[in-house]
């Protein structure tokens, strides 16, 4: 997976997707999505709600490689944080500290096999898909004559469901095109709450712990603020969008839980020494290697010191290839 999704490949993919997003978004993103949704509606008993759910889950499952890569990168970055902090301390009074720190950081990332854009890359790649899916939902069920007329330009001639348009937008008693606040009870309140709760779970399970107290505090605030804000905004969203966000969050939580273990939701994924050690090994660093320079933070996480420039690409590779053996030997 790692070899396949090399940094260069990611860059090329990212640039290509960005170009598509900018120049031919309708052709390459919206068109296939709208056609899939319309076809799914026909297959799933003319139920557009089921079509949205099935399609959202399918797209998220197809993006698992990106999610895995993002999660692994986050874990590696997390494991490197103590060393980053130690390095910051070391260079804080140095006259050329900023440059040295930057150079050391890059070396550290290189040796650990961490891509600085590794966390951001998959997210950027997913952005056109999320916006596309959102747009596709509302293009597939247009509410206006203009929207309906324009739909004909998106649907493929060979799509057997093309003549079933306009689709019925009712789903378990609510109109998916109408605002959530207009949905019948209990959906008008349940949907915002479910969207907020699922977003909280999604953020909680994928959050990267911070060594910095201020950042940790901000993280904590964001963990609560964003779901609450989104929950309130959901009242003003069309119900179809709320259904899409809800199921996207739920499948995201499930995928991350499978990758990182269910403990992640309880906040123990990065918090235990075992987990940190595993991440550290994955990042190509060992505890023993830096035992004299390490320090203990929060009473649990073993923080790794800098490796004094001994790391190199070869060591990082071997660390990635044979983590278990390497760990055993050092014991």
């Amino acid at each position, binding site marked *: 997976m790692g070899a396949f999704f090399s940094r260069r490949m990611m860059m090329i993919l990212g640039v290509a997707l960005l170009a598509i997003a900018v120049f031919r978004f309708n052709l390459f993103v919206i068109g296939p999505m709208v056609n899939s949704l319309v076809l799914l509606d026909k297959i799933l008993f003319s139920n557009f709600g089921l079509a949205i759910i099935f399609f959202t889950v399918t797209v998220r499952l197809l993006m698992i490689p990106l999610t895995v890569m993002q999660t692994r990168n986050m874990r590696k970055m997390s494991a490197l944080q103590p060393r980053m902090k130690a390095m910051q301390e070391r260079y804080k009074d140095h006259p050329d500290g900023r440059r040295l720190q930057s150079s050391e*950081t890059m070396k550290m990332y290189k040796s650990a096999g961490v891509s600085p854009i590794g966390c951001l890359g998959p997210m950027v790649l997913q952005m056109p898909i999320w916006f596309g899916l959102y747009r596709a939902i509302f293009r597939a069920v247009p*509410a206006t004559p203009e929207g309906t007329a324009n739909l004909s330009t998106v649907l493929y001639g060979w799509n057997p469901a093309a003549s079933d348009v306009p689709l019925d937008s009712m789903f378990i008693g609510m109109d998916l095109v109408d605002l959530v606040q207009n949905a019948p009870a209990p959906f008008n309140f349940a949907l915002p709450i479910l969207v907020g709760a699922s977003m909280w779970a999604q953020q909680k399970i994928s959050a990267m712990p911070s060594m910095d107290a201020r950042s940790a505090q*901000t993280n904590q605030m964001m963990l609560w603020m964003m779901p609450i804000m989104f929950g309130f905004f959901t009242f003003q969203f069309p119900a179809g969008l709320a259904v899409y966000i809800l199921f996207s969050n739920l499948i995201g939580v499930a995928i991350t839980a499978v990758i990182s273990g269910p403990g992640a939701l309880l906040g123990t994924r990065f918090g235990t020494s075992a987990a940190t050690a595993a991440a550290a090994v994955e990042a190509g660093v060992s505890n023993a290697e830096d035992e004299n320079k390490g320090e203990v933070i929060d009473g649990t996480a073993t923080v790794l010191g800098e490796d004094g420039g001994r790391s190199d690409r070869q060591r990082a590779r071997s660390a990635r290839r044979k983590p278990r053996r390497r760990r055993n030997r050092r014991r």
Partner: protein
Amino acid sequence: MKRPRPLLLGMLISLSIFVLAACVGDLNPDGGWSAPVVSGDHVYVGAKDGRITRLSLNEDGRFDTGWGYPPVGADTLGPLYGTPRINGDRVFGAAYDCDNLDCDAQVYALSTDDASSLWPEGTFTLPTSIVGAVAVTDDTVLFGTAGINDELDIGDAEGYLYALDTDPDANPRVRWRFATDASIWGTPVVSDGVVYIGDLDGVLHAVSLGESDGSAGQEIWNFKAGGAIVSEPLITNGKIYFGDFSDTFYALDIAARESGGASSNALGFGEWSFDSDGWFWATPLIHENSLYVGTLNGNFYALNPDTGAELWANPGKVVGQIVGKAAAFDEVGKGTALAVPSGEDNIGVFSAVNGAELNGFASEGGVKSSLVVDGRFLYAHTTDDHLLKFNIADRKLFTCIDAENGGAC
């Protein structure tokens, strides 16, 4: 390399929310495509701001500033998709506007003299949407609606065909209404005491006006097409012609249908269908025993009205969608020509003989409404809300008026 800050992430997410919320605007109609109507000395048009205005033909196409409904300053009617209908000295039509999916439709009846409402309480309103135009008989206005807001407990069907009493001295009264299983976006057509209208389930309904036998509002027959029907049917020589969203164009024999001699979901003797490559929204045109109709894919077909056979080797093609009805005119020395509105580009012109593309009209923008030919002029209402008057002979623009305020374009 710094980690992405949570605050930055928060801002990105907030931005995403605004982007998503901005798209909610897609729920509201954006102005309609009401076509111009020439009657007497005026051209009437429904402007995109929801007002009915008119242009004088006698004064070199000047905007009639003294005539308009609603009056300047009052709430407008909302987007107008249907073309106004002139019946004697009365103008009828419908409009609707939505706050998200909460829609209100209005049917209006105006005096051609001063644009005043013929009904004491103004318009007839319903909590629904009316996309198509109205049909008018001497004493009845007919129109199709989407489902009625069920909170008012005045109907739970998905759509209705309404018949209103048009008595100018009283408020409009519902004579009858016919419930359908799907919303109606189409325009009704009246012929020989029967009103014909299609719905979004693809059912064409033939409903009695009951002028003689008291069967008003009763369905006489129906036909299930392959896709939604939004176009206004055309009735001529005992046949009804219409297209649907399954890319199919139909010709049904009215007499055979009325006598029960044809199935509701199959074609009978003398009936035909034509498979194209796009949805039909435009009303067909019949001219000199040829049938002309365009699709949303921009293809324009000439068909034999008796058999459905294509008359041209290849269909005409315009850039953009054909939503409005084409118009025929005589091209000096070249026979009949057909002007075809394009939703995105200039108005195309094709020879009726072989479909060859001729010199078009430079509308400088899309036209989704039907075209109108009157004498030596062609009128078009663009998607930019400009009312254009072209000289047919040289294709030159004679007048361009902003339909909203009457100013020059």
